[in-house]
């Protein structure tokens, strides 16, 4: 009996853990600290997703559009005051697998993004920019990429970084035992498949030209190749010492002893508690300005850690109330931030009722998205209408239908589609009642959605059957089983606009067949010219906005609050704080 009570009560908070856990799988590199849980709509909600305001006169939504500077640094808690050469940032759950390409958790990715530099990085718009590679050439046919490395690059132990290391890094991802989540194998490097099958001892398409130059040839053009190829570099001397084809087990032993080339190197990893980093004097841009950097493992609510000065930096949902509360602390700077993701509802296109475009449009008109995603979250969200984040270079509102809440229009569309109101107020067609089976992840935002959607759908004459899952794996299994009409998801971080369509290619959505979509999608990938691509994406977005193969829901809005003593801090939606961290100083 005692056991059962303990069991049940201990399960109480379990769900929130599951939600955070489910995101671990999804992000590999470059994730933004503390906010990389972007797979499910629910995931990013966590502790910060509370939508609430106690202020008598509500501040208009999106109250913070500009960075806010701390007003009274003297309020800073003594603990934080006493740190002179150390910055502490909370991170949900680094597990200790710090080797890029071989880690399963996005949080480990946060750590390794500080331990390893990339050949190519992206700027604040998501456009590729040089890092370890000072330049690159792309052949006329978009198939061959040649990278020119900086001279005198070094790993943190002082050993040189050359094109051989890059070749090694690419090669082992084609090993048949490689089980990581890198998307490099999907690029189809020439000869990669032969290597994987053991028919060749090297990969034909990878050529080391000189110690500073390396080229790689693909079988098919792909506009995302530059960023994927241009990721972290592993030392061949260190990680390749024991490498034999088909055997990668040994790398696991090196996870906690990473050898990188990034701004910081690992000092100490204390499981479940801290990842201590120390500045790397061999970093190619020069040693970072702050000697120590610590990722403190902190699950869920970080508010009390910020309030007591135990962490210097934390992210919160951008509710008016959170912002007010943070401003009242006095000693934090606040940075508004929109993650590079979008939320959507996957539609079961196998179901007859949802195959009809008119019905999908009716659902968009009939859902009060303004209430669900903006008003109820107190400004911590915005409405999405296209498969791109508002910060993407391809984002556009031209020719895009905003689907403003219009129940009358929705009813009209449903009538047009042949769904007439039946006896008990539920619409019917061919004797079948209109019922929507919705799946969502357990979170406050889902609760809000269900409460509002239930009213909205009832007004349209649609029977609404929500089902909530605390466990992401169970939810996905249910979706794979096909027993649903609508299911809420959020994309993981989108770097290239093409990523916004990923779910149509990675096997999740298999039933949307539209030759025009495929044609445009490939057209956009066949060129690297940004202006050219922009035009194609505009056309694609307009197509999707009208066709609605998925129902677009919302964008998240967050704020970063950080110790007012930290200078030069900026957060990139694509590479998180890794980009500006070497410049951070403590005033």
């Amino acid at each position, binding site marked *: 009996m*005692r056991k059962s*009570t303990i069991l049940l*009560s*201990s399960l*109480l*908070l*379990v769900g*929130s*853990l*599951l939600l*955070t*856990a*489910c995101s*671990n*799988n*999804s992000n590999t590199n470059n994730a933004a600290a503390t906010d990389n849980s972007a797979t499910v709509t629910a995931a990013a909600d966590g502790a910060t997703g509370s939508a609430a305001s106690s202020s008598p006169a509500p501040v208009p939504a999106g109250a913070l559009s500009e960075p806010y500077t701390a007003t009274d640094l003297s309020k800073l*808690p003594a603990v934080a005051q006493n740190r002179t050469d*150390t910055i*502490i940032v909370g991170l949900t759950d680094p*597990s*200790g*697998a710090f080797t890029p390409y071989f880690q*399963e*958790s996005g949080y480990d990715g946060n750590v390794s993004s500080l331990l390893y530099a990339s050949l190519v990085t992206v700027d604040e718009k998501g456009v590729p920019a040089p890092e370890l590679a000072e330049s690159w050439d792309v052949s006329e046919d978009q198939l061959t990429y040649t990278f020119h490395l900086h001279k005198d690059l070094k790993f943190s132990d002082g050993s040189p970084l050359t094109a051989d290391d890059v070749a090694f890094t690419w090669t082992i991802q084609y090993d048949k035992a490689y*089980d990581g989540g890198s998307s490099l*194998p*999907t690029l189809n490097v020439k000869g990669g498949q032969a290597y994987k099958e053991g028919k060749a001892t090297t990969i034909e398409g990878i050529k080391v030209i000189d110690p500073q130059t390396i080229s790689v040839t693909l079988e098919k053009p792909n506009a995302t190749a530059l960023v994927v190829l241009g990721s972290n570099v592993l030392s061949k001397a260190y990680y390749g010492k024991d490498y034999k084809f088909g055997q990668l087990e040994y790398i*696991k032993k090196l*996870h*906690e002893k990473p050898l990188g080339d990034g701004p910081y190197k690992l000092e100490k990893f*204390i*499981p*479940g*508690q801290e990842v*201590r980093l120390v500045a790397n004097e061999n970093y190619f841009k020069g040693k970072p300005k702050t000697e*120590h950097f*610590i990722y*403190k*493992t*902190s*699950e*869920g609510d970080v508010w*009390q*850690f910020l*309030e*007591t000065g*135990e962490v210097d930096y934390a992210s919160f949902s951008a509710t008016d109330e959170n912002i007010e509360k943070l401003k009242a602390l006095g000693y934090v700077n606040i940075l508004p931030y929109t993650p590079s993701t979008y939320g959507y509802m996957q539609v079961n296109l196998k179901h007859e009722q949802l195959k009809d475009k008119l019905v999908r449009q009716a659902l968009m008109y009939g859902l009060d998205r303004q209430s669900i995603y903006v008003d109820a979250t107190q400004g911590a969200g915005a409405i999405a209408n296209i498969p791109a984040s508002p910060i993407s270079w391809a984002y556009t509102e031209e020719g895009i239908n905003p689907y403003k809440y219009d129940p009358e229009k929705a009813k009209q569309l449903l009538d047009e589609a042949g769904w007439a109101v039946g006896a008990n107020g539920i619409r019917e067609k061919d004797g079948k009642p209109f019922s929507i089976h919705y799946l969502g992840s357990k979170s406050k935002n889902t609760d809000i959605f269900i409460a509002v959607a239930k009213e909205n759908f009832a007004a349209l004459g649609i029977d609404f059957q929500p089902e909530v899952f605390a*466990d*992401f*794996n*169970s939810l*996905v*299994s*249910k979706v*794979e089983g096909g027993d649903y009409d609508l299911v809420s998801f959020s994309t993981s971080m989108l770097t290239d606009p093409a990523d916004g369509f*990923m*779910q149509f*290619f*990675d*096997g999740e959505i298999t039933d949307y067949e539209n030759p025009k979509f495929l044609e445009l999608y490939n057209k956009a990938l066949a060129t690297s010219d940004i202006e050219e691509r922009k035009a194609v994406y505009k056309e694609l977005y307009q197509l999707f906005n009208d066709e609605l193969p998925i129902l677009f829901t919302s964008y998240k809005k967050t704020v970063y609050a950080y110790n007012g003593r930290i200078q030069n801090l900026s957060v990139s939606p694509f590479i998180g704080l890794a980009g500006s961290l070497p410049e951070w100083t403590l005033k």
Partner: protein
Amino acid sequence: MSTYLTKRLLYMLVILFAASLLIFCLYALTPGDFITGNIKLTAERKAELREIYGLNKPVLERYGLWMKDAFHGNFGYSLAQQKPVLQLFSDYIWNSFLLAAVSTFLTWVIAVIVGVISAYKQYSWFDTLVMVAIFAAMSLPSFFIGLFLIKILAVDLKWLPPGGMITTGSNATGLAYLKEVVRHMTLPVVVMVLLGLGSLTRYFRSNMIDVLQQDYIRTARAKGLKERKVLFTHALRNALLPAITLVGFELPALFGGSLIIEQIFNWPGIGQLYMKSFGLRDYPLLMGFTMFIAILTVIGTLLSDILYRVADPRVRL
């Protein structure tokens, strides 16, 4: 007794074997596997990975493989953490054990003392007060007590740290390290004691009241024994008897970790690790940990049966 023990030990092995099969199947039956949650992968890549991890084999074959490795002392690598399962145990279990051991010890000591006194003074104001206070502590959700104490003692008064096991970035060793850990574990231990105290105190009080009405207590008093002696030698032994079955049950709890407490106080324990692994379907870690707890449960059960006999010779096993 020794034939009984041999028989019980044999039973234990059979039960553990049955349990391992049952548990393995349970995890395998839980919707989704390690690959499912990663919705960024293509269907082909998913199939490839399932092949690499052996997840496409039939459940019984996977169980056989796991069992074979386990007999050789190999519990495999955690899929999500990329570390040997046994290393993860040693990384996290002792932190959980520390919290559980200290709080269990305190809970028992306080519960016995308070239980005995309030039984002895049944219906006195002390008794009533204790009862109401205990019920109050029992009827609050643990996260509530946790947040409340953090707010008052850590955030407002700044007497104790709000969470974690050591001060972030601290390099303390020896006595200073010990002091740091003690400071950090105070709040979680207080909450755990508060939560566990209620049922145990009530349990002791109830047993003690029963025992105090037995004939032998009257006899002892009639003999003119000192009240203290009657209470602590004669009555307590008998009152503790039913509770002794609980001792065995505490064993798995000592190593199992406490999820809510670990989460609220940011304690690096095994409870959180188990939950995360469950969310990810990290089978080797789940299997290893659950079997570890199963073994402790079985041992604990045996232990409590034996203790029971030691405490009450009348009971025939």
